[in-house]
């Protein structure tokens, strides 16, 4: 790259100002997910010579008979030995339009928790299907998880079209089943694309073997997804993460509340309600380390200074006085259980929500989702990878919104205080004060 214009672009222009799209990819064991990711990396020229040499050598030594792009992503010794993916892997790639951050979630049924993990931060879920098998239980499971985790955009990559004769009728049949599924789940933005990841058809380059497909390639679709509307710009929420009090000669009276904006747009002069204390004040300044800024939006890590000298510790939340979250003592939540030890009513756990941690007792399990029918049935306990509805009683108040309204203030994790393990992902459904 010697072109001066291209370099300027690299440093300050389009490439440096492109936005970040977070993806989660999921699919059943042999649907070719690693191959798809390898293909995306390879065809967008993210794979460098030494990585490619390594893959070619390993493919040959294993006797794969072809350059196995799946080896690009299966990083751990056990994965390479067993030819499977055992944990979430995170990769990045960049095109002229966008920077992608990809969470690669394994497809085994027992790794539902990994898909939940990957989906928690995703803007887009890419669900792989095998064109010969069509919509199977795993497809329904993955679409359900994406919808429960409120992943705003869903893409179905109908893979192995080469093994289905590149047949349009077969694709349309699957597309119809997917429409039914997404309607049932209430997914807003869903799209299906016929691909053959092994050969690269419709992944980055349009496929000459599917001339009937006039839609985007997978990559073009991902590049075009509009995410600006996915953030909650309406409800001002700011969990206080860290209090900056230098008490130096130069900054003797400085008191800044540092944190990441969880909702709304913050300006100097905005009215503020501090929760749970209920004190009212106003925003004196919104600052970054480089000085005052005129607005802070969700996702930004900033420092907010308040007009009045009031004591606001970590774990408090600054909010719009006219639009407050619920101050909850009891929660009803959708939970994905991630521990080998089953969850039983009466269990005591720690809840980490935004920057606040309280204790909880599981008052009851209202039901567990049957992954085949997507219906909830009664259950006495929740096993590893179960998704269900629980009621929690809290030792102290949490300031929450329903997860469907705000992913940051509606989500929490449960921690087993005996082992310190993260044992569940939780999403607030409704609240009792």
């Amino acid at each position, binding site marked *: *790259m010697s072109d001066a214009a291209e*370099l300027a672009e*690299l*440093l300050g222009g389009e490439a*440096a100002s492109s*936005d*970040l799209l977070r993806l989660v990819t999921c699919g059943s064991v042999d649907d070719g997910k690693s191959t798809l990711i390898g293909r995306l990396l390879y065809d967008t020229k993210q794979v*460098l*010579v*030494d990585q490619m040499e390594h893959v070619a050598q*390993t493919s040959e030594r294993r006797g794969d008979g072809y350059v196995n792009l799946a080896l690009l992503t299966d*990083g*751990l*010794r*056990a994965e*390479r030995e067993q030819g499977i993916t*055992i*944990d*979430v*892997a*995170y*990769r*990045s790639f*960049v095109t002229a339009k966008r920077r992608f*951050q990809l969470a690669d979630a394994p497809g085994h049924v027992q790794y539902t*928790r990994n898909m*939940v*993990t990957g989906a*928690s*931060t995703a803007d887009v879920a890419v669900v792989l299907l095998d064109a010969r098998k069509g919509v199977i239980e795993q497809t329904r499971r993955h679409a359900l998880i994406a919808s429960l985790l409120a992943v705003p955009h869903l893409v179905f990559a109908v893979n192995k079209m080469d093994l289905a004769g590149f047949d349009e009728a077969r694709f349309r049949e699957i597309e119809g089943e997917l429409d039914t599924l997404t309607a049932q789940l209430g997914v807003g933005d869903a799209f299906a694309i016929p691909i053959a990841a092994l050969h690269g058809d419709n992944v980055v380059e349009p496929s000459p073997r599917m001339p009937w497909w006039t839609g985007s390639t997978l990559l073009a679709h991902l590049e075009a997804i509009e995410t600006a509307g996915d953030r909650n710009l309406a409800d001002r929420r700011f969990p206080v*993460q*860290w209090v*900056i*009090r*230098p008490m130096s000669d*130069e*900054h003797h009276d400085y008191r800044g509340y*540092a*944190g*990441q904006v969880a909702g709304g747009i913050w300006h100097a002069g905005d009215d503020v309600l501090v929760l749970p204390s209920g004190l009212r004040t106003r925003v004196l300044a919104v600052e*970054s*380390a480089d000085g005052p*800024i*005129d*607005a802070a939006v969700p*996702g*930004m*890590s900033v420092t907010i200074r308040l007009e009045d000298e009031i004591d606001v510790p*970590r774990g408090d939340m600054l909010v719009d006085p006219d639009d407050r979250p619920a101050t909850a003592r009891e929660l009803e939540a959708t939970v994905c259980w*991630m521990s080998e030890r089953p969850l039983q009513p009466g269990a005591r756990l*720690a809840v*980490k929500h935004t920057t606040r941690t309280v204790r909880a007792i599981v008052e009851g399990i209202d039901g567990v989702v049957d992954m085949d029918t997507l219906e909830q049935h009664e259950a006495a306990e929740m096993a590893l990878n179960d998704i269900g509805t629980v009621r929690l009683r809290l030792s102290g108040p949490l300031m929450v919104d329903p997860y469907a309204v705000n*992913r940051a203030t509606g*989500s*929490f*994790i449960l*921690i087993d*205080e005996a082992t*310190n393990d*993260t044992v569940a992902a939780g999403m607030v459904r409704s609240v009792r004060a």
Partner: protein
Amino acid sequence: MRTAVHLTHLDELEAEAIHIMREVAAELERPVLLFSGGKDSIVLLRLAEKAFRPGRFPFPLMHVDTGHNFPEVIEFRDRRVAELGERLVVASVQESIDRGRVVEQTGPRASRNQLQTTTLLDAMAEHAFDAAIGGARRDEERSRAKERIFSFRDDFGQWDPRAQRPELWSLYNGKIRKGEQVRVFPISNWTELDVWQYVARERLELPSIYYAHEREVFERDGMLYAASDVVERYEHEVPFREWVRFRTVGDMSCTGAVRSRATSLHEVVAEIASTRVTERGETRADDRASEAAMEDRKRVGYF
């Protein structure tokens, strides 16, 4: 005043990293930030400024010094720490050798790289550090792609890839027992190019060896090593002068140089953007040892 309603990918990565640093400071008792003088840890220092200024850093900095580092980097390290007015702990591999904690390898292929693990773990125990913030990135190496941002280590400092805590939303679980540690990687999701773009955007100063300069080098296994009295040479390895720069900064015994005439930041970024070889593949001998070299080292406590 700056208006930033649209977040670029660098803004998002920066905000995420700042959030992570503040979580470490708030949830762990005695964190430390690992600072080697390399570009990734220079970015960490900038992020720490963004997270905690005008206050002081709520943790000291620590350098695990192999004693075989580039003098230009050590000079830079000390100057940068003084400018920031923060505390630096130096954990010395030479001291570990002198105290008999580790045995130095001998011969032309001797490296102090692996010895760092013991020095790091000893220093963490000595200072009772329970969290070490480091500049590792997932794009560096295959096994890193699997690692969490809060990477839990047992009381032997070991990483078990099969027993990692799920990481959901931006809710990090920093709960540990006495003796256990977390390694925290705020720039996990950054790539080498992101780091360089950030260095350019924030106008960060780097040690001079990142820019092309003429120096005595010799060739081994297709890599150019700096000629120095800390790396023993085979007879056929005759040093010669060459224009080079370094893509990564590590111990002189395992860090290779690349031929380059890129003397400015713009020229370096242009080279990085057009390279066809990964950073570690090109210049880190320690990762070439076996297919899972990094994974194996991390399992026993390496960074």
